[in-house]
């Protein structure tokens, strides 16, 4: 079982460049999430989706965009990369909105912007 797969694992970007972080899950989960993790700050929600075609902002959405055209995929787009977006990005999924369903995480994309 692959679970949640994130690509790439590592990436270095120059300021002003753009890129898309890929996330796919094979568990037929309806709900998907993007977080960023910074040292001492925990995980902050960037965007989330409750189903194909439905997305909404989380706590720190500025500088990012998402789309959800299929149940499996939830890509995160960085436009005009800035040094403040240097972070580790995690994608997660869960079965549904029932609060007791655990979120399953990918292994992250480590992004440096220089």
């Amino acid at each position, binding site marked *: 079982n692959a679970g949640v797969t994130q690509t790439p694992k590592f990436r270095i970007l120059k300021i002003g460049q753009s890129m898309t972080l890929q996330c796919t899950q094979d568990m037929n989960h309806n709900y998907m999430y993007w977080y960023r993790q910074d040292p001492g700050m*925990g995980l902050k929600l960037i965007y989330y989706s409750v189903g194909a075609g439905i997305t909404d902002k989380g706590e720190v959405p500025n500088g990012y965009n998402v789309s959800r055209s299929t149940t499996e995929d939830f890509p995160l787009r960085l436009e005009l990369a800035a040094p403040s977006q240097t972070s580790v990005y995690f994608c997660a999924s869960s079965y549904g909105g029932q*609060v007791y369903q655990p979120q399953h995480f990918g292994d992250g994309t480590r992004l440096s912007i220089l």
Partner: protein
Amino acid sequence: QQQVKQSPQSLIVQKGGIPIINCAYENTAFDYFPWYQQFPGKGPALLIAIRPDVSEKKEGRFTISFNKSAKQFSLHIMDSQPGDSATYFCAASMRSSNTGKLIFGQGTTLQVKP
């Protein structure tokens, strides 16, 4: 109101010790409190979770204690082992949001010395 405050930031114990990690919240609408465990280079994974209608939950060597009136909950690891060395995150969620969104604490890095 939406914050979850976690302490300490880091913790070092000897093998067999009982590390305790504490979390506090303000929003009384939170009704689900999971703990996630994260090993280096990996995404977080659900460890144990509790609802506010119980004061304690135990799974193996891991115990959550919950104090609803104080709006605090804590994770205890009995007979800690070097393999427990990881970063631990507490979190909180509201079933009524119907989004499964989690608010994470800042994280605690635990080192268990042999």
